[in-house]
């Protein structure tokens, strides 16, 4: 009964999404006030239905209803309650339900957030979001219905894929999807502006908090995924240029370009059509990512079960959503004239270069992502594009970007120049070079040319970000939250660059064979293999080793690398032991028994690796802080002013 109720609620949600799209887009176009006014109730109704539907699926998981195919395939009665709920997004159909639910949450937030904006504009935003909801719900119902029953029902489920049984799984997809779907709101704002045929600085001010919060969630989601892969998959790396990682990274690069371009549009009324295009492309790339992951066109570690039909459906949806937006763009954008010019050394220039470099980087990733598909489609054979392509091409656009960050932050709007900060920035660069070289050559050994340069840039970004807040503190001037947020985000970037360089250049890695009682040295640490024994978990058994780690005679940690054998699925997984000491990350993975009491181990000492994710989280935190700035909380009078401004456009 419960699964049928869930499916019924989803069908009702589909109808309400259709009404939401119809009222929101057609109402303002025909000037029918009643239609326009009906959008918000449709949004509320759609949310209730989607939440009911997801609740029903969760209930089926919690109740171990193995007559539901999706539950039987992804859960098991031995699974703890927490993972039975998280198993909802463990595979294709359920993750779509999660996606739809998050989209309707964002839609409700957008309805609340746009309540004080001009009514027609708000209705159009919600209307565009309605079309997206409609597409995704229809997709789920037609090709990936998670409520289908099994006949005969299974006695017990297959269980959740063990590599997904981790707290990281519980958080990674929802956070990442929140970011993906948040870009839909920015897309909807762009869509509403295109439908209205006008865009001003007010529009940028309304859009910015949405774009920035979506970007912050995307940043967190990618960081969590990378952290999860780092310690669960036991690969010991944090980024693999896997097609699915790229699928999330491309919208992030576009989103980063968008939030910078929006700054220019808001402050100076420039880059209007460019900003619109970025808003459209950001969400388009998350749709393209969805297509690549779920159509079976790409083969990846993330491969979801693929069936024919899904690919065609998403492609059709892509053509409608992106095609319509880009066609509208081609029609409307020429009318959106920039309001003023600027000097070459002005902040606008730096942000323009920021955009060009980020979009270029996104383009190179996109090219690498598409190359195997193109090659296969044209019958040129299978092709694999990996780090040898991505690393250098990405670096070519990213290194100049890092040079621009400290300068761009301090360049003045319009007139240009560094506003008297030139010398301070030079001193900061000197200090950063000292730090970069000292760490690259002094603390570590074997540095090439790139690592001291990159570490210097990271340190320079951090120091340069601090100049403005220190100056304001000294002169006792309040720091607006938007400025503070930007500063923090850039510090996060600096930390990320610095630590990523350390990890890439100075990781010590060894495979060793040890007998119980013997020890080995690696990366300045001594590893003592003390013992090994069996372990027993709720739905797995396995082997667990004890490794005592010391640094210069002092104990650091007792580590327990393990191998687990999940008896339901008969899958063996490796659980590396990870410990943190003085900013370094020590990883021990248990390998095979080599006979006569010897076991193989993989030892890694990765300096500063934790700061990669800390840096990313700081970036996201900066973004979230920036959107709490006063000017995004519209005052009533400002809202009226804005309404008056847009009234002319609506009267047509």
């Amino acid at each position, binding site marked *: 009964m419960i699964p049928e109720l869930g499916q019924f609620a989803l069908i009702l949600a589909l109808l309400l999404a259709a009404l939401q799209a119809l009222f929101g887009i057609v109402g303002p176009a025909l000037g029918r006030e009643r239609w326009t006014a009906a959008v918000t109730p449709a949004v509320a109704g759609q949310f209730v239905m989607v939440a009911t539907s997801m609740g029903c699926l969760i209930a089926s998981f919690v109740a171990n209803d193995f007559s539901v195919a999706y539950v039987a395939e992804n859960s098991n009665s031995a699974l703890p309650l927490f993972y039975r709920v998280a198993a909802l997004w463990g595979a294709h159909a359920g993750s779509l339900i999660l996606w739809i639910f998050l989209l309707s949450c964002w839609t409700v937030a957008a309805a609340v957030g746009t309540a004080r904006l001009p009514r027609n504009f708000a209705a159009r935003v919600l209307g565009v979001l309605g079309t997206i909801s409609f597409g995704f719900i229809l997709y789920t119902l037609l090709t990936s219905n998670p409520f289908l029953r099994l006949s005969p029902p299974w006695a017990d489920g297959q269980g959740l894929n063990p*590599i997904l049984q981790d707290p990281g799984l519980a958080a990674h997809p929802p956070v990442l999807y929140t970011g993906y779907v948040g870009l839909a709101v920015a897309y909807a704002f762009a869509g509403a502006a295109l439908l209205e045929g006008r865009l001003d600085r007010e529009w940028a001010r309304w859009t910015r908090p949405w774009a920035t919060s979506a970007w912050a969630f995307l940043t967190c989601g990618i960081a969590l995924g990378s952290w999860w892969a780092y310690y669960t998959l036991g690969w010991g790396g944090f980024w693999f240029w896997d097609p699915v990682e790229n699928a999330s990274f491309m919208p992030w690069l576009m989103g980063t370009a968008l939030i910078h371009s929006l700054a220019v549009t808001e402050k100076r009324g420039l880059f209007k059509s460019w900003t619109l295009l970025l808003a459209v492309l950001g969400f388009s790339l998350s749709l*393209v990512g969805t297509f690549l992951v779920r159509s079976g066109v790409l083969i990846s570690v993330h491969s979801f079960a693929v069936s024919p039909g899904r690919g065609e459906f998403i492609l059709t949806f892509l053509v409608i959503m992106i095609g319509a937006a880009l066609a509208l763009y081609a029609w409307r954008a020429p009318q959106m004239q920039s309001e003023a010019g600027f000097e070459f050394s002005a902040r606008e220039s730096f942000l323009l270069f920021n955009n060009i470099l980020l979009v270029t980087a996104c383009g190179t990733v996109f090219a690498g992502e598409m190359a195997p598909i193109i090659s296969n489609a044209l019958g040129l054979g299978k092709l694999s594009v990996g780090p040898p392509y991505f690393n250098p091409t990405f670096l070519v656009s990213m290194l100049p970007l890092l040079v621009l960050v400290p300068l761009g932050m301090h360049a003045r709007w319009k007139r240009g120049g560094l506003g008297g900060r030139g010398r301070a920035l030079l001193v900061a660069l000197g200090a950063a070079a000292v730090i970069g070289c000292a760490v690259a050559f002094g603390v570590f050994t074997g540095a090439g040319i790139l690592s001291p340069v990159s570490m210097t840039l990271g340190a320079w970004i951090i120091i340069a970000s601090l100049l403005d807040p220190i100056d304001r503190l000294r002169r006792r001037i309040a720091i607006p939250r938007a400025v503070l947020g930007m500063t923090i985000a850039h510090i996060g970037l600096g930390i990320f660059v610095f630590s990523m360089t350390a990890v890439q250049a100075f990781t010590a890695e060894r495979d060793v064979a040890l007998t119980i009682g013997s020890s080995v040295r690696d990366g300045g640490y001594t590893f003592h293999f003390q013992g090994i024994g069996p372990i027993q978990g709720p739905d797995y058994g396995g082997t667990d080793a004890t490794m005592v780690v010391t640094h210069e005679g002092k104990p650091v940690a007792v580590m327990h690398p393990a191998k687990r054998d999940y008896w339901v699925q008969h899958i063996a997984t490796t659980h590396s032991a990870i410990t943190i000491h003085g900013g370094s990350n020590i990883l021990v993975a248990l390998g095979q028994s080599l006979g006569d009491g010897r076991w193989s181990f993989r030892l890694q000492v990765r300096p500063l690796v934790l700061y990669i994710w800390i840096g990313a989280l700081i970036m996201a935190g900066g973004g979230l802080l920036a959107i709490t700035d006063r000017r995004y909380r519209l005052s009533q009078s400002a809202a009226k002013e804005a309404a008056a401004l847009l009234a002319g456009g609506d009267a047509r």
Partner: protein
Amino acid sequence: MIRYFVPLGVFAAVVVLLALAIHQAPRKDLVPSPLIGKPAPSFALPSLADPNVKVTSAALRGHWYLLNVWGTWCISCRIESPELLAIAHTGVVPLIGLDWKDSRAEALAYLHQKGNPYQQVAFDPGGLEAIQWGVYGAPETFIVNPQGIIVYKYIGPITPRAWAHDILPRLPAGQASGS
């Protein structure tokens, strides 16, 4: 203002490529078995090697296995034979043979000459058991999970590519290694 049409043009080109890519994607599942996701038929058949020993579905419970339907008369099965031996050599998953509409002497001679990739071979001279599995041509290979559910059906001779792309990723060994 031609430049405003550039994004639309680029997008159109990408769509054409993606549409081509979908149609180029392997479509082995165009004739899906209605048994996929359903419990495998239970059987108890005489072993090819020894008619007094039974090969039973009950004994196979609790392990992943590939059920490979073959016969000495089937040309495609001969083509598939080296790949089956290679799979057996990896030890990733046991191969269970279903010798279909065959003669015992010929089948034993064939396995002796070409090599035997199967852990066990069930003998089905009348082809009645194969009907239960919905077999309509040899070779066909079913992936069966420890719960006795048919996870996948592969039609035609298994090639190295089919093993790597269609079969191994559906086995726990293929998923755990993350490839």
